[in-house]
């Protein structure tokens, strides 16, 4: 199985890795049977135009190289984005930003977009 350089870069030096203290939203997806568990923490701030923007984001992931690389990539893609735009980031967007994933990994280890959506949902629920 061959990984792209971008996947290896994110895997070996993941961005925004760690725990976010007092997060506004948290999302966890995956299960140990498949081997991948992902958790995304977000902080949300309202900007001048009253848009809800992801001001900070971090992740923790137990999983294979592509699970860690997609987690890292989605934090880059989501940071600074309005939550409406951020929740529209798809699996394909993440894979594309990483210059592709091996086909078998497209399904099992590409859960980062779902973890982000779960974190945004969690944030919205808290606001209600």
């Amino acid at each position, binding site marked *: 199985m061959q990984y792209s350089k971008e996947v290896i870069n994110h895997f070996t030096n993941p961005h925004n890795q760690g725990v976010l203290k007092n997060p506004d939203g948290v999302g*966890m997806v995956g299960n140990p*049977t498949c081997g991948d*568990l992902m958790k995304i923490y977000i902080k949300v701030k309202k900007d001048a135009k009253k848009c809800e923007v992801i001001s900070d984001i971090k992740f*923790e992931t*137990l999983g*294979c190289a592509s699970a*860690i690389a997609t987690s890292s990539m989605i934090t880059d893609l989501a940071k600074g984005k309005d939550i409406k735009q951020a929740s529209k980031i798809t699996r394909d967007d993440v894979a594309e930003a990483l210059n592709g994933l091996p086909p078998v990994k497209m399904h099992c280890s590409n859960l980062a977009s779902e973890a982000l959506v779960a974190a945004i949902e969690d944030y919205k629920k808290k606001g209600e």
Partner: protein
Amino acid sequence: MNKKIYLDYAATTPVDMEVLKTMLPYFSDEFGNASSIHYFGRNAADAVTAARENLAHFFKCTEEEIIFTSGATESNNLAIKGVLRAYEKDKKNKGKIAHIITTVFEHSCVLKACQELEKEGRAEVTYLPVYSEGIIKPADLEKAIKENTLLVTVMYVNNEIGSVQPIAQIGKLLAKINAKREEKIIFHTDATQAVAYFDTNVKRLSVDLLSMSAHKIYGPKGVGVLYVKKGTRITQIQDGGAQEFALRAGTLNSTGIIGLGKAIEVLAKNKPKETKKIKELRDYLIKKVLKEIPSVRLNGSRSKRSPNNANFSFSDVEGESLLLYLDAEGMAVSTGSACSSGSLSPSHVLLALGLKPEQAHGSLRISLGKYTTKKELIIFISKLKKVLEKLRKVSGEILKEYYSKKK
């Protein structure tokens, strides 16, 4: 650039220099087809005969009982399908379906061959459990035997966890049972991982068929042997020429066979000394890892284990990640994690031991060989600690949290 350290000898081994030197003339100088009767053919045939003698001497059998194949996968397929085909060809078995007994954690070439035969409706198969130690119980085997049992196939040493099966004991048991049976049960063992370290005297093991591969014993890839005891009911499964006593059609891979002949000779010379040295190194590795690394378990039996194998599960990491981080440090090892193999479920071997999926996903196989040094192991352990720390930081307490939320 990091110095590369190879700890994946169970996957394959480098060709021994002495073996390579023996093989070299047979690529383009002595290139004849061993089946040709002219000068060129005779030269190749003579060298093949010498190799066959070496193998017969090693396994304590006759030369006619050594069948050269392309490796253990072919040997195993020939053993299982060849025995079944001979059974099916026999008119008195018309309308009957043969029964095969094997284990749940055989190499995939045996498991898949059995599963295919089941699917085709040509055989019923019993898969024996291996329990937490990775060892079958002969009593289970005895209970599984039926009137139509044709073949028992049990691997000698498991390729992932190195656990050793009681082959000689099974051989004796089957001999006792066969003494009272009209239709004798044929006994096959896949000894691919055992040849370098364990007794492979086919008389003492009481096996009818035994598979092995050259590239696990510092020989070339693409050549192996099926030992076939004289009188065993088996036919060819590949049609063509009458090579290998009409059991395996196809031009002989003479260069490979000559390499295997030399590899077995070199092995026989150094076997006790090397086994002892490698076992000491392996014990050092296991002791150090269990003592100095937190949240780790050794998979498979501690004592009934191949001298060159260590298989660990590390909690809170996934095997492919571990493998790639180690690779970046120059360390070559292997994992039973699905994520590195392209399939979705983790190692059937580790699951058969009763491991949880995440334990199977977090597994690492370290296999030593005759070129392994203590210095290499010291470097490996320090790199392992470093990458585990890094990966465990990435996963945090996510697994613990997952289970606490499930409750």
